[in-house]
């Protein structure tokens, strides 16, 4: 008897000949109806907005480097960039997973509400700025002003952090394995609890990384900026 297990249907786009609009329109409107769940994209050559605005359970693999806003606003889909990403990768992601195999430029995961962003290499400045609930795991280091005003979610940094990490943090929590050049206003180191170690372990495992959770330090908000203090002389 023939194997009845359906073979996942794959579709390939080559951005050397297909337009970006062809690709994104297909991902938005036609992939699900066609029963296609795996999409491969060749020759992105730094194009902007590759696979952005997805809202279906698709598995997209982009082979090459992408420009601004790759996989921005992602919902449900898994997008893997086999290369480097330009500014704003996975910005405003709602759910799903975005995996950058190379490095990510500035503002990776900015304002993301949900889902998991994994960056195997370094992330540049302002990673996770204004994070609203997503998880970010960076295999390398992050640049300055990362997690600025991050409101919810978790950021795991396996390397070092630049200046002003977690400036004006709200409820987001940062775990750093390496050196922190400086903490931002109102960010502070806090003791790691069992719950923190379990959280780091889970995130590292989801990202496919094998560091020891005990090597990480927790950075969270001291919450001294939550309320206005008449006596603070406004020197924050």
């Amino acid at each position, binding site marked *: 008897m023939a194997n009845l297990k359906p073979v996942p249907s794959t579709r390939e786009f080559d951005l050397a000949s297909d337009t970006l609009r062809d690709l994104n329109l297909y991902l938005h409107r036609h992939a699900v109806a066609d029963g296609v769940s795996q999409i491969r994209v060749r020759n992105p050559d730094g*194009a902007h907005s590759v696979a952005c605005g997805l809202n279906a359970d698709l598995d997209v693999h982009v082979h090459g*480097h992408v420009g601004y806003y790759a996989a921005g606003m992602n919902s449900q889909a898994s997008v893997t960039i086999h290369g*480097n990403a*330009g*500014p704003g990768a996975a910005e405003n992601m709602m759910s799903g997973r975005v995996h950058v195999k*190379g*490095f990510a430029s500035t503002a990776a995961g900015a304002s993301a509400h949900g889902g998991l962003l994994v960056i195997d290499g370094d992330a*540049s*400045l302002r990673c996770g700025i204004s994070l609203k609930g997503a998880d970010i795991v960076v295999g390398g280091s992050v*640049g300055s002003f990362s997690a600025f005003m991050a409101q919810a979610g978790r950021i795991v940094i396996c390397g070092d952090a630049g200046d002003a990490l977690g400036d004006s943090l709200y409820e987001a929590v940062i775990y750093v394995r390496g050196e922190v050049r400086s903490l931002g206003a109102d960010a502070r180191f806090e003791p790691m609890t069992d719950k923190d170690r379990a959280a780091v372990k889970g995130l590292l495992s989801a990202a496919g990384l094998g560091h020891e959770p005990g090597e990480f330090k927790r950075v969270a908000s001291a919450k001294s900026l939550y309320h206005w203090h008449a006596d603070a002389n406004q020197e924050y």
Partner: protein
Amino acid sequence: MCGIVGLLVKRAEMRNQLGALMVPMLVGMTERGPDSAGLAVYTEPVSDRKHKLSLYSGEHAVDWPKLADELREAYKHPQDIATHGNHAVLTTGADPDLVSGWLAGHAPHVAVLSVGHSIDLYKDVGAPAEIAKRYRFSELNGTHLVGHTRMATESAVTPAHAHPFTAGRDFCLVHNGSLSNPHLVRKHLEPLGIEFETDNDTEAACRFFEWRLREGDDLKTAVARGFSVLDGFYTFLMGTDKELLIVRDAFACKPAVVAETDDYVAIASEFRSLAHLPHIAHAEIFEPKPEEIYTWRI
């Protein structure tokens, strides 16, 4: 917003491909800078006793050979001129400052875009592809070049406001970003006898660095000094006859990507201007870190 591109070829036999490799880089940055474009190319230097001046006449028709004859008459020095419509490269044995002064008096429509032993400079208003075609950029030869596509945000769209800016000899600079204190910088430089040609913020940076070079700084030292003097956003790409330099401000809001192979170093605001380069898949690719100075020598 603007686009920057830079290219340095490491092997002598690649020098005749410099322009052809660069044109797609410049055109690739059209969306970042559709209103003007320009580039400085560093060629084989002329002899020590001579200088090259890149001249531009805009919409005015100039009889370049006649101009060269008049200069020959005035200075009794050989003057060679290579012309390209409204653009010419004058090679002169006379003092280039005297020649510039003579041009200002006798040919007021002719702007001197650059002076040096190696540098040739082209800039104009229009789409990058048009400008590349107008001045046959694809045929350019040389060791390295510095290019720019401009989307004006702080001063007028004119050829004089287009980049690269030059000052002194064989020095040029292009800029993506905006400075917030160019007038202050200018106020410090003007009493030193440094003259400005435009109200453009980038010109202030260019003249500041060139002043520091004349004061004895090497280029890296001059640029490091700029960290405490120049306020604003910038990715600067600079050229001298010997090197290419890139630097980004502390906030690194303005992008830059470098791709390096055994054959070349290519720099652009975005990877999409580098994607066509040979063996790019095997290049070392990185983003310059904020306030780190990267240089490559020919």
